[in-house]
């Protein structure tokens, strides 16, 4: 208890500044920063003052904010002006030019069926003869394989997907039949509508296949040959052969320039032994 009291008295003395502890601590006040540190700090302080931090007309955050706001305002005005001067025209969907499917086969199937179900009543594709779908399917399988072996393998391989795709088409047809029959109040005709729905799907598929053939034809012979030559150059012999065969089917009478494509001529000679070699 007496100790505590003594400690408190000593502490009060210390706070008043008359303690021998402070005297001892202040006894030796040697030390301090090195001269190098002194020099560095003073130099930094001077250079900070001499450097004009906001001297330039566009320097400094404080000036950047109003400038940004003004720029945004000008851009908005310009956009409004352009909109008034050139009223927008409705955007047309881009035509499909490539025969190679870019999305997955499932997406592709869903897209075909979905589109068919929507457009069935307003379908503009002309009816094809019964043999046409088969013929077109054969050509389509070739053209799919032809332009790009990578996409060709994608398109050719998914045999297991045929079942889900078929089921999806059936479901769509069923849905169509239910809706149509339900709307017309004649449930006994559901079967007829279902058949009609399937026929519409087939029609739409036919239309797409013919589009693809046109798209493949659109690819110029020259570009195609250049691609094949590039594949040969990259030692992709198999792919080049496949492409060359597809090319010959699409352009059976095209004369290949032996000066420009000597390697293709050689490949052609391998594939078609009867053809003239360079």
């Amino acid at each position, binding site marked *: 208890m007496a100790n505590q009291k003594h400690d408190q008295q000593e502490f009060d003395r210390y*706070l008043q500044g008359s303690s021998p*502890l402070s005297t001892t601590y202040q*006894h*030796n006040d040697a*030390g301090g*920063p090195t001269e190098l540190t002194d020099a560095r700090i003073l130099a930094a302080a001077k250079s*900070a*003052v001499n450097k004009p931090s906001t001297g330039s007309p566009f320097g400094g955050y404080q000036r950047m904010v109003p400038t940004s706001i003004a720029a945004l305002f000008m851009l908005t005005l310009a956009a409004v002006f352009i909109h008034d001067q050139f009223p927008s025209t409705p955007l047309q969907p881009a035509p499909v030019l490539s025969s190679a499917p870019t999305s997955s086969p499932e997406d592709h199937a869903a897209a075909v069926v979905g589109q068919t179900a929507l457009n069935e009543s307003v379908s503009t594709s002309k009816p094809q003869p019964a043999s046409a779908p088969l013929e077109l399917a054969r050509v389509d399988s070739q053209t799919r394989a032809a332009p790009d072996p990578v996409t060709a393998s994608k398109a050719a391989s998914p045999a297991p997907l045929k079942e889900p795709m078929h089921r999806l088409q059936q479901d769509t047809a069923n849905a169509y039949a239910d809706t149509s029959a339900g709307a017309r109040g004649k449930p006994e005709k559901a079967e007829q509508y279902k058949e009609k729905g399937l026929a519409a799907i087939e029609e739409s598929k036919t239309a797409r296949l013919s589009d693809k053939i046109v798209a493949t034809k659109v690819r110029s012979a020259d570009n195609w040959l250049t691609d094949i030559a590039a594949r040969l150059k990259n030692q992709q012999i198999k792919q080049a052969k496949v492409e060359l065969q597809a090319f010959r089917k699409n352009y059976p009478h095209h004369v290949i320039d032996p000066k420009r494509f000597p390697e293709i001529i050689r490949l052609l000679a391998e594939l078609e032994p009867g053809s003239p070699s360079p």
Partner: protein
Amino acid sequence: MLQQFTDEQLMLRYRDGDASAFEQLYTRYKQPLHRYLQHQCGNKATAEELFQDVWMNLIRARQRYEVTASFKTFIYRMAHNRLIDHYRKQRHGIPRSYHEDEILQNSWEFADPISPEQTVSGQQQWHILLQAIESLPEAQREAFLLKENTGLSLEEIASITGVNSETAKSRLRYAVNKLRKTLDL
């Protein structure tokens, strides 16, 4: 001429572009600030680095400087913050003593107290004191060093270290008692 200005006036002058005002401020503060950092870290090289950082931070912050408190409080708060950053980057993080408001007096081990028979010179006594300071828990050590090197009040020390006055007073009391007993004062 600049000697007549207060710290705050000098800092304002420096803010407005007077480099010589900074020199004056630096001359006033370099010694105690360096000593505070060196005795707090116990390492000269680290103290040198922290010391330089504190002044560099002050130089960078000069344009935002407003007189809201005394310059002394301002610069020592910067130093304290830099010190805490330094501790945070250490393996053990911020020392426990900064989190403990109840200070464990008994857990502290006294440095060998000087026996009454021993007669030590002033220089020796100072070295013993330095060792004793080094063995204090960091928070208590800082309270003592701030008091000794700045002469600030308990409220100002509390403000610098971010604690209430009672905690600051308690830390200082424990530190003073331990040091006094070590030196047999």
